[in-house]
C-alpha cells in the first residue's frame, strides 16, 4: 500500500524544461516512475526526452494524461503560483522541491489552500519515494530529488524535514536489509504544506508500515505536536532523532525554519517531548535505524 504515492501513481512535473527539473525527471524515469507529463508555459506541444509530452497548463496535462501528483521545480519567485495552479487543477498531491520561496508567499498559499482537496508536501524538500520491487528498488515512485537506489521496499516509514538526513536514515535501514514503505521529506521551511504529524497519522493507518523513523530539527514546535499525538494514538513503534543540539540560538542553520528563537524550538525540548511520548531516541544520527529495530524487536 505505502502512503501518498504508489508505483502506479501518474506524475507530472512543473518546470520540466529547467536544468534541475529535467535532470531529476530523467532520474525518476530511469527509476521506473510513471512520469506522464511535463508543464512549462509556452512550451506546450513539445516532448521531453522523446517520451514525456509537455503542456502549457497543469489542467490540460491532467486531463490528457490522468496525472494525479505533481513535482514543482520552478524557481522561487514563481513557485507559489505553480503550487496554486496544481491546487486549482484538482491534483491530489503537489510536491514542491523549490528552495528559497518567500515566507509570505507560502502564508498566502496556505490560506488559499484551505478547504481544497490537494495535499502539499514541501516546499524546500527532497520529495517522496515509495520504493519498488526491482533491483535497487527500481519500479517505485520517486517524486523529487532523492537518490532512488538507496531504498528497498519494506515496512518502515520515514519522515523528516531534512533531505540528506533522510538519505542517511534510509541507507542505514537498507544496509541492514530493512526496507521502507514510503519516505517523506516534508521540507525545512517555517511554512509548509504537510507536517510531521500529518505523515505520522498516514503511517499509523497504513497496514504495510510497521515502524516509523521521525527525524526533526530545531525550530518551531511541529515535533512536539507529533510527539503528543503519538503518545495518545500511535500503535506503531517510533524512533526519532532531532538535529541541532549544538546550534547557537538566534541563528538560522541552513534551513529557513531551523532556528531557536526566544528560547523556543530547542533540541532539548523536542527530545524531552519524544521521550515523554515513548519515542525511541537515537543518541547520534548514526543510530537511527538501530534504535528503531531494537524497539521493534522488543515490541
Amino acid at each position, binding site marked *: 500500500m505505502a502512503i501518498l504515492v504508489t508505483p502506479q501513481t501518474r506524475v507530472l512535473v512543473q518546470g520540466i524544461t529547467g536544468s534541475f527539473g529535467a535532470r531529476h525527471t530523467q532520474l525518476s524515469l530511469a527509476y521506473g516512475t510513471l512520469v506522464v507529463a511535463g508543464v512549462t508555459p509556452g512550451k506546450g506541444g513539445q516532448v521531453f526526452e522523446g517520451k514525456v509530452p509537455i503542456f502549457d497548463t497543469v489542467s490540460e496535462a491532467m486531463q490528457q494524461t490522468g496525472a494525479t501528483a505533481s513535482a514543482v521545480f520552478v524557481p522561487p519567485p514563481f513557485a507559489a503560483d505553480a503550487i496554486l495552479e496544481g491546487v486549482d487543477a484538482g491534483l491530489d498531491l503537489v510536491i514542491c522541491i523549490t528552495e528559497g520561496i518567500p515566507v509570505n508567499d507560502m502564508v498566502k498559499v496556505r490560506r488559499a489552500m484551505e478547504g481544497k482537496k490537494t495535499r502539499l508536501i514541501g516546499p524546500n524538500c527532497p520529495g517522496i519515494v515509495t520504493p519498488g520491487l526491482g533491483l535497487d528498488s527500481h519500479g517505485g515512485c520517486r517524486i523529487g*530529488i532523492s537518490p532512488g537506489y538507496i531504498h528497498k521496499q519494506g515496512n518502515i516509514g520515514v519522515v523528516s524535514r531534512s533531505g540528506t538526513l533522510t538519505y542517511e536514515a534510509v541507507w542505514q535501514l537498507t544496509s541492514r536489509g530493512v526496507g521502507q514503505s514510503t519516505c517523506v521529506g516534508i521540507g525545512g521551511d517555517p511554512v509548509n504544506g504537510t507536517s510531521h504529524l500529518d505523515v505520522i497519522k498516514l503511517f499509523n493507518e497504513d497496514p504495510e508500515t510497521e515502524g516509523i523513523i521521525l527525524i526533526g530539527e530545531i525550530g518551531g514546535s*511541529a515535533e512536539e505536536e507529533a510527539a503528543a499525538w503519538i503518545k495518545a494514538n500511535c500503535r506503531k513503534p517510533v524512533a526519532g532523532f532531532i538535529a541541532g543540539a549544538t546550534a547557537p540560538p538566534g541563528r538560522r542553520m541552513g*534551513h529557513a525554519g*531551523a532556528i531557536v528563537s526566544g*528560547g523556543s524550538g530547542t533540541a532539548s525540548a523536542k527530545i524531552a517531548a519524544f521521550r515523554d511520548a515513548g519515542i525511541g531516541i537515537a543518541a*547520534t544520527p548514526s543510530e537511527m535505524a538501530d534504535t528503531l529495530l531494537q524497539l521493534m524487536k522488543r515490541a
Partner: protein
Amino acid sequence: MNLHEYQAKQLLGERGVNVPTGAVCATAAEARSFAEKAFAGGARLTVVKSQIHAGGRGKGTFKNGFQGGVKVCKTPQETEEKAASMLGQVLVTKQTGSDGRLVSKLLVEAARDIKKEFYVAVLLDRATSRPVFMASIEGGVDIEEVAEHHPEKILKESIDPAVGLMPYQSRKMAAALGLRGEMMTQASKLFAGLYKTWWDCDAAMIEINPLAIMIEPDGREVLVAVDAKMSLDDNALYRHPKIQAMRDLAEEADLEIEASKFNLSYIKLDGSIACLVNGAGLAMATMDIIQHYGGNPANFLDVGGGASREQVTAAFKIILSDPNVRGILVNIFGGIMQCDIIAKGIVDAVRETGLKLPLVVRLEGNNVELGKQILRESGLTIISGDTMADAAQKVVNAVRNVSPSAN
C-alpha cells in the same frame, strides 16, 4: 537579514508608525547640531543610541570603559560629549559576545517624559502559518521573561492573511492594553502601520519595545515607537532592492560574508573541529555527533546539494581561515552526486590549500568505493571514516592527539 534601529524606524515611519524625531549621526558635531535644533524646538532631553545589531545596548560597556550604549542627555554639549565617547568605540553587550561591535553610527533623538510602556511585535506564527501580533502591558523589559513567568500578560492576535489586520483587531488589542479614547485611535493607526511594514517589507519579525505613551511639551499624550528591532525574510530580499541596500556588512562575520559569495551556508562557532557537509540537516547532525563524542564543532557548513569542486575548495579555505580549527571532518552523502567526483574535489582542495591539519572524510552513496580509492591513492594523509559515528570519533581523537603548539 537584520536592520539597524534607525533603518527599521525609517521603514515604519514611512508607513504611518509614529517614531521619535531623530537624526543618524556619524560624528559628534552632527549629534550636537541635531541636539541644538531639538532643544530649540522645545525638547528637554535627547537620547544618544549606539547603532549595532545586538540587544542589551543600554547595559553594555565600551572597551574604553565608557558605560552604556544608550544615554539620555540634558544639553547639546552633553549630547556631543556622549556621542564622542561612543563613536569609533567597541560596545560589548550580553548579545555581542566578548568581541563586541564597533559603533560607527548613532541615532540621536528628541526624548520626552514617558508615562507608560508597552510591548508589541508582529511575527510569523508557525503553528498556524499566519502572522500574529503579540502585545503586552509589560513594556521595556525582557519579553522572554514575561512569557515564561507571566504568560497571561501576553496577548496574541492572529491575522488572516487574506484580509490583513482589521481595524477591530487593533481596537481589541488597544482595549486590552488599556488604551482608550484618543489613545485607541493612535494605537489603531500605529498597529496598522506596523502590520503594513511587516507585510510590505517581507519582515520576519518587527518588535517595538517599548511602545510608549510620551508627554509632549504642551501636555499632549502621544503613542510612540521608542525602540524598534526588525529582521527580514532572506528569501524575499530579491524583491526589495532598497532594503537590500541597507545591509551592513560590518555587522556580519567576515568568513560568513565570504561563504555567501560561494553560496555556502556557513556559521562560525567556538569549537576546534571544522565540518564540511552537504545538506543542512546532516550538517547540524554532524555538529551534534562531534559534540557527542567529546569534541566541539568549529562551524556549521552546508555546501548544498551540488557541492562542486569550486565550492569544496572555497569551503576548505573558509574553514582554514578560522584560527581555532585543529581538525576537519568532511561528511558527504553523495546521493545523486558521484562520490568519486567529490573525492577528486577534496584532493584538489587539500593540495591547493596545503592542508596540514588532520582530515577525516566520510563518504557514502554513488561510487563510494571508487571515491575512497581516490582518497587512498592521493598520497595525502586523509583518514577515512565508514559511518558518521566512526568518522566523528576519529576526528575527535585526531584533534586530541595534536598539541595546540604544533599548529
